[in-house]
C-alpha cells in the first residue's frame, strides 16, 4: 500500500518548479554517504487484507483472557455510544486544539472532562490528561515539591508498587527523595508518618482504594490530619480505579490536596496496558503549577462564550526549561471518551459502583467458603486480597487474580482479586466450582 498521491507527471512538474532534476537533489544537505538505497531487513509490503489477516491471527492468541484481574487496569462495560462518538473523524483526526476557532468540539469535550474530574474528586482544577496513572503520580509529586520547595515525599507501601517504581525513576532523575510508609494490616500505617516526617518532607502519597483494594482513611484517628496541618503536608491521593469515585466518599472529603491516577475505567478498554488515561486534579493553589494542557472558558470576538487552551505560560512550548512539565501530547481522545462515558452513565454511576461492590463482595464470600482465608477486614470497593489457604492456589493455573508475591514477599501466598459489573454471578459460581474441584491448586 501507499498513501502518497503523486504520479510521475506530478513529480516531474514539481521538480521543475522547484528547480532540481531529481528527488535526491532535495536531500543534498544530508551526508551523502549515509543515503540508503533501501532499508535492509524489513518484511516485504503486504496488502490491507493480508495485514488484516496477520493481525487477526495474532489477536486470536489473546482470546483466553484472565479473570478477576485488576491491579491497576479494570474491565468495565463500555456503552456503544462511547466509541461511536470517539470514532468520528472530527474528534480523532484532529490534534491539540491550538486554533480554538476550529476546535470547539475537542475543547468542549475536554473541558467537560476537566469538570467531571473536578466534581468527582472534589478538586478545583484538572488537567486535560496525563499519560497514565504512574506518571501522573510522579508528576503530582514533582508539582507538590515545586510548590512546597521540599524534596522529600513519603509514600505508602499500599500504593501500587509499579507506580512506586515509576516514581522512584522520576525521583532519581529529579533528585527527590522517597521514603516508604509501612502497612498496618492492608492499609497505610498513618501513625508511622510522624516518625518519617522531617523538615524536608513536603508530601504524603496514599492510594485509595489502595493496591489491595482497601479503602484508606487518612482522616481517621491516627493523628494524621493534625500532622498534615502542622507540617503543611500535601496529601497526594492516588486513584487507580476511577469508578470508585462515583461510589465512595470523595478524595476532597478525605483531605486530599492533589488527586492523581488513572481514569481508564471511564470508557477505555484495558488495551494490554495502553493507552491509559492519567489525570491530575488539585486544589486551586496549584492552578498555575499543574502540568499539561488546560482548557478554559472565554469569549469570542462576537462576545459568545467559547473555550480555548489557557494558562499556556506553564507549558514547555512557552516556558521551556522552566515549564511545569515537559508533557506535550497527552491522552486526548481518551479524555473525550471519558466525557462521553460519564455522560452516558450519568447519575447511575453510583449504582454501577454499588454493583461492583456487590459483585466483588460475593466473589470474596464465595472464595472464603472455598478455602481462601481473610488477611484483614478493611472495607474495600471492587478489589480485595485473600490468603490462598494451605494447599496453595496457583493464580496462573487458575487464570484468575493477580499474584502480589513479586512485589510483596510478605504476601507470597496471597491473591489479589477484582470483580466488576462484567463478572456475573454465574461466572463467579463457575469459577468457585473449579476451585472446589481442586484443579487450580498447586
Amino acid at each position, binding site marked *: *500500500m501507499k*498513501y*502518497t*498521491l*503523486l504520479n510521475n507527471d506530478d513529480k516531474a512538474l514539481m521538480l521543475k518548479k522547484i528547480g532540481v532534476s531529481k528527488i535526491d537533489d532535495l536531500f543534498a544537505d*544530508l551526508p551523502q554517504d549515509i543515503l540508503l538505497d533501501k532499508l535492509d531487513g*524489513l518484511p516485504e509490503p503486504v496488502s490491507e487484507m493480508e*495485514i488484516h489477516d496477520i493481525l*487477526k491471527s495474532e489477536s486470536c*492468541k*489473546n*482470546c483466553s483472557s*484472565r479473570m478477576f484481574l485488576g491491579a*491497576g487496569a479494570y474491565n468495565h462495560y463500555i456503552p456503544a455510544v462511547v466509541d461511536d*462518538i470517539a470514532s*468520528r473523524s472530527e*474528534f*480523532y*483526526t484532529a*490534534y*491539540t486544539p491550538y*486554533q480554538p*476557532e476550529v*476546535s470547539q*468540539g475537542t475543547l*468542549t469535550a*475536554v473541558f467537560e472532562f*476537566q469538570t467531571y474530574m473536578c*466534581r468527582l474528586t472534589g478538586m478545583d482544577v484538572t488537567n486535560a490528561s496525563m*499519560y497514565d496513572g504512574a506518571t501522573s503520580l510522579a508528576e503530582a509529586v514533582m508539582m507538590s515539591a515545586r510548590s512546597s520547595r521540599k524534596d522529600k515525599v513519603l509514600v505508602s507501601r499500599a500504593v501500587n508498587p509499579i507506580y512506586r517504581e515509576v516514581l522512584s*525513576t*522520576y525521583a532519581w532523575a*529529579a533528585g527527590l527523595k522517597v521514603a516508604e510508609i509501612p502497612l498496618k494490616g492492608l492499609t497505610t500505617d498513618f501513625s508511622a508518618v510522624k516518625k518519617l516526617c522531617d523538615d524536608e518532607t513536603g508530601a504524603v502519597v496514599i492510594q485509595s482504594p489502595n493496591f489491595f483494594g482497601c479503602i484508606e482513611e487518612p482522616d481517621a484517628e491516627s493523628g494524621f490530619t493534625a500532622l498534615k496541618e502542622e507540617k503543611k503536608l500535601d496529601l497526594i491521593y492516588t486513584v487507580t480505579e476511577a469508578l470508585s469515585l*462515583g461510589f465512595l466518599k470523595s478524595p476532597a472529603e478525605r483531605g486530599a490536596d492533589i488527586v492523581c491516577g488513572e481514569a481508564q475505567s471511564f470508557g477505555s478498554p484495558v488495551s*494490554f*496496558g*495502553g*493507552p491509559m488515561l492519567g489525570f491530575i486534579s488539585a486544589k486551586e493553589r496549584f492552578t498555575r503549577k499543574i502540568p499539561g494542557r488546560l482548557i*478554559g*472558558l472565554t469569549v*469570542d470576538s462576537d462576545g459568545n462564550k467559547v473555550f*480555548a487552551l*489557557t*494558562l499556556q505560560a506553564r507549558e*514547555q*512550548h512557552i*516556558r521551556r526549561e522552566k515549564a511545569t*512539565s*515537559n508533557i*506535550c501530547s*497527552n491522552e*486526548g*481522545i*481518551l*479524555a473525550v471518551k471519558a466525557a462521553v462515558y*460519564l*455522560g452516558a452513565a*450519568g447519575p447511575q454511576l453510583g449504582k454501577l459502583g454499588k*454493583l461492583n461492590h456487590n459483585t466483588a463482595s460475593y466473589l470474596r464470600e464465595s472464595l472464603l467458603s472455598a478455602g481462601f482465608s481473610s488477611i484483614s477486614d478493611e*472495607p474495600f470497593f471492587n478489589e480485595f486480597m485473600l490468603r490462598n489457604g494451605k494447599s496453595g492456589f496457583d493464580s496462573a493455573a487458575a487464570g484468575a487474580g493477580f499474584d502480589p508475591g513479586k512485589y510483596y514477599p510478605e504476601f507470597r501466598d496471597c491473591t489479589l482479586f477484582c470483580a466488576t459489573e462484567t463478572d456475573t454471578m454465574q461466572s463467579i459460581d463457575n469459577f468457585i466450582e473449579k476451585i472446589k474441584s481442586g484443579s487450580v491448586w498447586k
Partner: protein
Amino acid sequence: MEIIFNKSKKGKNSYAVPQWKGKDYQLDGRYTGNTSLLLPDVGESELVRHYVNLSKKNFCVDENMYPLGSCTMKYNPKINEKLASDPGFTSLHPHCDCESSQGALKIIYELEEYLKKITGMKGVTLLPAAGSHGELTGVMLIKKHFEKTGENRDTIIIPDSAHGTNPASVAMCGFKLKEVKSTPEGDVDIKSLEGMIDKNTAGMMLTSPGTTGLFDRNIKKIAKMLHDNGSLFYGDGANLNATLGKARFADMGFDIMHMNLHKTFSTPHGGGGPGAGPVAVVESMVKYLPVPRVVKKGGQYSFETDFPDTIGRIHSFAGNFLIYLRAYVYIRLLGASGLKDVSETAVLNANYLLALLKDEYNWPIKRRCMHEFIINDKGFPSGITTDHISKRILDYGFHAPTVFFPLIVEHSMMIEPTETENRETLEKFADVMITIKKEAFETPAIVLDAPHNTPIRRADVVQAARTPVLKWE
C-alpha cells in the same frame, strides 16, 4: 457554547445498570458518597446529538490539509483504526500471563526490530507514551550512563531552535542547560558549540532535521566533536518523516533518539493524543533501557524486568500498545520502499509548496527545505501579523500552520504539508496564501478581523488566562 451539563434534567438518563440479584452487601455510610447530583442527567440520544453537533465544530485531517508544522498531520490509514479496536487486543489485560498474550508480545518484539532497522540503532524501548516522554527517558539514559561511568557531567547543550519539550525534559532530569545559537542559515553555530563543549558536557540534543525544516549540514562534525569529548549525542526524531527509509539516525552519529510513532507511523492525533515515543540507542546504551522489556526465548515471548543497569520503570504497564499496533501495521503495509516513498514525497511536497510561496512571502532562511519550511509576515502591512494570517487561513477551509515557533525566526509560520497531500491541494493552499497577502494590502480589515466563516469567531485567549474558568459551575 453548548455544554452537556446544561442539558441535564432529572429523570432523563436511563442508562441501565444490570440488576444484582444476590445479597446486598452494605458498605458503611462512612465510606460512601453520593455523586448522582454531580453528573448530568441526559438520555443517550441527547448525548449523541451533543457530540455529533460539537464534532462539526472541529477541523480535522479527514476534511482537508492540516499543515501544522512539526506535527506531521498526515492522513492515517483506516485499517489502523479497525485493527486497533479489535477486542482481541483491546480486552487483553496487561497483567494476563505471557502465554495468553503471545500475539501482542510478538507485535512489540517485531516492531522493536523494525525500528532498529529504520534507525540503525541496536536497542529500542517502546515504553514512552509520547515524544516528550521519550526525551525524558533518553535524558535519563544519559544521566544513568554517567552515573555508571562515575563521571560528573551536569550539562546538556540544546540549540536555540529546539522544541520546548527538549529543555523541559533536560530540566526534569536535573541537568543544567546550555543553549547554542543557530547560524542565519539554520545550522548549529559550530564555533559557539566548540566553545561550549567541555568536561561537564553530558550531551547535546539536536532535532534532525531541525525545527526549521533544515538538515544540519555539520551533523557528522557535531557528532564527532561530542564523541571526542566523551559526550552523548541525542537525536530528537519527531521529524523522522523527512528521512524515513532514506537515512538512519545511527549513521548520522546519534547515540540516542526518540521517534514519535503518532506522527511518522500513522496514529491519528486524537485531539491531543495518545502517542508513543520509542527510544532507540546504540549498543553501549542498551543496558540502561527501561523495563519491562520483551524477550524472545525459544519462540516464546515474555516481559522481563530483571536488568541490573536499567533506569527502571517509566509507565504503569508496557506503554501505549494500541499505538505500537498502528505503527506495526503501517510498516508492514508500506515496507522499505513505501517508507522511503513517504520521506521523498513529504520532502518533495514541502519544497513544491515552498516554491509556490517563496516569491510572495518572506522566506527567512533561503535554503531548500526538508519536510517543512518557514515563512513569515515580514513585508505585510504593519499591524497584520502571522497571527492574523493564520486566522484568515481558517476561513478558507484549511488548518493554520504552526505559528510563532521555532523562536529563532520572528513570527514564524511553519508549514508541513506531509506526503499525503496531492499536488492540487498544495496549489489550492498556495493560492489561499497568496490571496491573503493580496487582501492584507487591499482589504486589510478582512484579515485583521479573521476568522469570519468558522464555527466561532476569534477567541479571546488573554481573557481566558486572566480569570481562568477551568470547570463548569
